[in-house]
Structures are given as structure tokens and as C-alpha cells.
């Protein structure tokens, strides 16, 4: 994945660039809004990370808006120290696709970038999701693993659907809270973990190969490949 990072803070820049490189992605960096605008308009990127506070008191949102106005559809993740829900809404209204507040864990950033690029590649009007022998029919809402049918509660179904749509990617607890429960706050407990372990009971317990795995310090991933799961 090719990433453009528009960020003026050197430490954050190094931290993100190094992380991306280690994860096997290429990244360009722009330290100012103008440079970022130029790069974003001229080079094809898979995803753009845009800081909100840029030198010269430029709000990254203005650049996002300008890019969108010029017809650029590249997914944009907005980075900001402003955590208010209202700021978040403003960021998304300006044309951002996701919003992450500083300070953040790199795992969280990477997971969200992954989710954004996959989304951009188009999930289309899929009606069936499949990971190994686990199958979900979105129309009939039937879940099967191998030949066995699995009964899920509506919320468990939604959780599994989200995990399947982001198969082979790391999904963080915050992402699950936001997308499955629509909770934009930290419930301060490990309730998400409990939900995951309940789901795991249903889809993995009686099978030899576990699909739903915990990624240390990051979140979870639903994958058929054994090499994922520990970063």
C-alpha cells in the first residue's frame, strides 16, 4: 500500500514512517499543507494520513476539502489532537473517511489504514462472505462452518460480519466499538473482549483450526492464514 503522510511533527512522522515501512508499505511524507496538496494531487496514493494542525495554522480539514472538491477520491484518515465528538464529525463531513486522535497506538493506525484501503477497493454488493470454511450469507443471515450451521444473536452476527469484511486485517477494539455498537467512547472495560470470546465459542470452539485470533497489543483478526496473528 502506498501512503502519503501529511504531518509536521518530526517525531510522529518518524514513528509512522518507520512503522509503515516495517509493515511492508511505502510512504511519502509532506511536512506542509501545500506540499501535501501537491503530492496528493500528482501521485496516486492508496491512502492519505492528514494531520489537522499544520504549519502556518492551516487546518488539515481545509486541504481535505480542497482535495475532495478537485475530485480526488483517495481515502483520507485524519489525525488530530482534538478529540471532541463534534470535531470528529467535522472531520468526516469535510471529506475524511476516518478520524484518529493523538496519541494513538501504531497498531490502531495500521488497522484503520488497512480497513480504508480495502474499503476503497470496493467491497461491492457482496451477499456472501467467506473465510476458510466459515461462510456468512448476508441475505438469509445464515452462518455455517464446514457443514455445521451456527446460530448467532443479531449483534454477534454484526460483529462477525464486520470481522469477515475485514478478514486478514487487524481490527482494533475501538474499531469494533465504533462500527458494531456505534459507541464513540471508551467503555473503560474489556466488554469487547467478552463479546469476542463468546463469538469465538460459537465459531471456533469445536474446530481444529481457530480463525478468530487475538493480536497482542492491537486487537483481533479473522484469518485462515497461520502467519497472521502476531505482529
Amino acid at each position, binding site marked *: 500500500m502506498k501512503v502519503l503522510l501529511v504531518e509536521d511533527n518530526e517525531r510522529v512522522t518518524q514513528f509512522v514512517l518507520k512503522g509503515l515501512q516495517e509493515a511492508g508499505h511505502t510512504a511519502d511524507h509532506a511536512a506542509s499543507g501545500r506540499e501535501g496538496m501537491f503530492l496528493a494531487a500528482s501521485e496516486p496514493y492508496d491512502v492519505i494520513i492528514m494531520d489537522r494542525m499544520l504549519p502556518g495554522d492551516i487546518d488539515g480539514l481545509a486541504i481535505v476539502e480542497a482535495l475532495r472538491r478537485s475530485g480526488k477520491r483517495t481515502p483520507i484518515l485524519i489525525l488530530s489532537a482534538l478529540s471532541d465528538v*463534534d470535531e470528529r*464529525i467535522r472531520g468526516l463531513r469535510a471529506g475524511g473517511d476516518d478520524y484518529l486522535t493523538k496519541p494513538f497506538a501504531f497498531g490502531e493506525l495500521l488497522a484503520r489504514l488497512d480497513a480504508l484501503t480495502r474499503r476503497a477497493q470496493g467491497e461491492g454488493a457482496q451477499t456472501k462472505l467467506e473465510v476458510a470454511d466459515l461462510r456468512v450469507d448476508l441475505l438469509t443471515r445464515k452462518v455455517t462452518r464446514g457443514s455445521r450451521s451456527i446460530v448467532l444473536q443479531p449483534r454477534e452476527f454484526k460483529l462477525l460480519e464486520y470481522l469477515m469484511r475485514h478478514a486478514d486485517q487487524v481490527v482494533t477494539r475501538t474499531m469494533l466499538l465504533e462500527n458494531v*455498537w456505534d459507541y464513540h467512547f471508551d467503555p*473503560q*472495560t474489556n*466488554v469487547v473482549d467478552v463479546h469476542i470470546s463468546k463469538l469465538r465459542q460459537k465459531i471456533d470452539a469445536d474446530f481444529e483450526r481457530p480463525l478468530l485470533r487475538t493480536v497482542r497489543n492491537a486487537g483481533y483478526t479473522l484469518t485462515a492464514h497461520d502467519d497472521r496473528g502476531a505482529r
Partner: protein
Amino acid sequence: MRVLRASALTLAVGYISLGLAALALFAAPLWFAWRVTIQDGRREILGADATRLAEVFRREGAAGLVSFMNARVGMQIAGERLLLLADAQLQPMAGNLRAWPSSVPPTPGTYTIKADLGRGLTDVALVHSVLNGGYHLLVGRDTARLEPLERRFWYALASAVAILSVLGTAGGILVRRLLMARIHGIRATVSTIIQSDLSQRLHTDRSADELNTLSQTINGMLDQTEQLVHGIRNVSNAIAHDLRTPLAELRSRLEELALTRPSPQQTFAEIDAAVADVDRVISIFNALLRLAEIDSGLRRSGFVPIDMADIAAAAVEFYQPAAELKNIQLSFESGGPASIRGDPVLLAQALGNLIDNALKYTPDNGAITVAVRGEVERGVEVLVADSGAGIPDADKPKVVERFYRGDASRGTPGVGLGLSLVEAVARLHGSSLVLEDNRPGLRARILLAQDTLQITRAARGDDPADERGALRHEPVYP
């Protein structure tokens, strides 16, 4: 100050002008009535006189009238009455006027002229009639008789005006003095308060006058400010204390790493632990920022019509697996319309905190009930009741304080901001968090104001969702 001075002056001037206007309104009709009555009466008397003289003329002819008039003039006192008989050429024949007054035209009618009746020029009212044979008869009356009365009327009016002006000005000055004295007092006290003595209060008494009420209001404001400042001091201390613990742990962890240089594997484990320490610090800051955001009241702009029962049902569903782990029965009850205007994210978080709290302090195999009931005391009641240890009455006010952690909470995770957030969210929605005894356990209650607008809409069959589209701050939480 200048505004005030001006306002005191304007007040005095205004009162005086008002008094004068009232006086004028009172005097003008009186004056008019007086004039009309006097004039009419005079004309009537003169008319009667003229008729009588005309009767004498008719009976006894011109000569008779002349002698009659001469007799009358001889008897008359001080010439207050005026009589004149003239021939067709306006040559006087009898009466007390030496010549025909030039200002009276030779046609019959009623006139007022200036004439000299021996005491200088005075106003004289005249009735002029023309008799058979071309004789002119003038009957008049000197109006000077009424002048002193008139003068007295004007004098009285003038003195009334003078007294009113003097009293008004003096009153205005006095009122201003009194007002300024009290305002100076208030200003002096407020100045000391500004110079950081927040315990000072303005002097008040039991009277209900405006300045007293104002002082009481200011005192109320000062009470709140003092409380807030105290709160901030306590909170700063608490923050410092609460942050010191994870930071101290972090520091010793890193120091030990630097000193002992353990194996890479152990080093990474320590680093992970250090990251967790930092996360704890960040979560404290996030919670504080969240509280500050709520306290600022800015979130009120994002209020939308919501169904509290939906939010509660979702929260209960979310926490259900956690309750199952402790074998706690987490149940949800709802009844009545639960439509309110509010912030769905904050209300969900507040309710989440209450349930989370209940889960923490309820022992295994206990029970937690979440209830949302409409039409309780004309509002929507949100209730979280548990069968845990509860909170002693003495501690109830303290638990909502920021960073307060009861004895029971030692050793449980959390930073002691959970209930503060619930309280802040309740306050933002114009309510408060009430903690009651559940015997055993704790009942946390919030009474939210019902969204009456939405209920009437629902009754009419309108779609309440329509309103969402019309809102300026559309509730988008993607």
C-alpha cells in the same frame, strides 16, 4: 459609572417632566371651563341688559331711554358697567362712554374691545344692538373685575410648577446619592473579591428592593464560583496524585530496565507494561477532557430527539456478556414513552458507566436492573439498580466528585471519574444523578425531561425522524 449617573439624572428629569405634564393636563381643562363659563355668563347678562333697555326704548322712545340710561349711569358703581346710546351717525346720546368706540363696527353683534373706563385700558365685552330708527345701543361690562382671580390662578400654577421642579430635582439628587452610595458599596466589595478574596459577600437584608435582589444574585454567583474554584483546586490535586502513580510506576520500570539491561524478551515485556502505564495516563486525560467538554455545555447544540429506551436496551445488550461472566442477572425494563432531547453518545456513555459500575460492585450471582420509564414525574426516569454493597449515605455526595474512590473500590480498575461523568451528563440534560438505597445495593436515578414536542408529533402520527433532517446539527456518528 457615567451611564449610571446619566440614568439617575434622566430619571429625575423624567419624573419632573411627567409631573409638569400631569399638572398641565389638569390645569388646561380647568382653564378652558373657566373661560367658557365666565364668557357665556357675561354674554347672557349683557343680553338681558340689552333686552331690558330695548324694552324701555320700545315703550318710551329714544328720550325715555336716554333718561332711563342717565338714571342708571348715575347710580352705577365705579363704571364697571358700560352703557352707550348713539344715533344713526354713531353720535353718543346717553351713557357713560364719551364717544363711540372706533373698534366696534356699526353692525349688531358681540365684541371684546380694549376701552378706557377711567382706570386705564381694560378688556371690555360688548353687546351691540341696533334699535328702531337707527339708534345704536352698546351694553358692556369691564372684565377687569375677574383679573385678580385669573392672576391668582396663574400664580398658583406657577408655584406648583416651581415646587414640583425643586422637589423633583432634590429627590433625584437624593435618590442618586443613595443609589450611588449603595453601588459604591457593592463595587468596593466586588473589588476585594476580584483581588482574590472569594469568601467575601455583598451585604444583603430582607427587603425585596432591586439592589438587594441583585446583591443576593451576585452572592449566589459567588457561592458557585467559590465552590468551582475549590473544586478545581481539589481536582488539580487529585489529578496530580492520580497521575503520579502510573508515572512513578513507569519511571521505576524504565529506570530498572536501564540499570539491569535484561534479556531482549524481558525488555519487550517491560516495554509493553510501560506502554500500558502510559495508556492509563492518557485514559485519565481523555476522561478529563471529556468531562470538560460536557461541562462546557457546548454539546447541547447537538441535542436530537432520541428514545431513551433504545439507548438503554443497546447498553444492556452490550454489557450482557460481561454480566454473564459473573453470573449476574442483568435485566432491562421499560414502560411509557421515553422520548427525550439529548446527546445519544453521552447518554449511552453515562448509562454504560452506571452499568459498568454496578457490574464492578455487585458480587457474583447478584442482579442488576436497568429501567427506563416514561411519564414518571412528567419526565423519563432512567434507573440502574444493583444488589451490591451500595454506598453509605455519608459518601453519596462524594462519589460524584472527580477522582473520589470509595473504600470499596480499592483494588478495582478505574480512575474515579465514572460517576462524575454520569453526573455531568445528567447536568447537561438539565437533570441530576440521584443515588438511593436499594436495600441492599445502590439505585442510581436520572430524571430526564420528556420531549413533549415529539410526543405530540407521535400522537398526530408525524414521523419524528423528519425533525432530524431539519436540525442544523445533524446527528451523524458514522
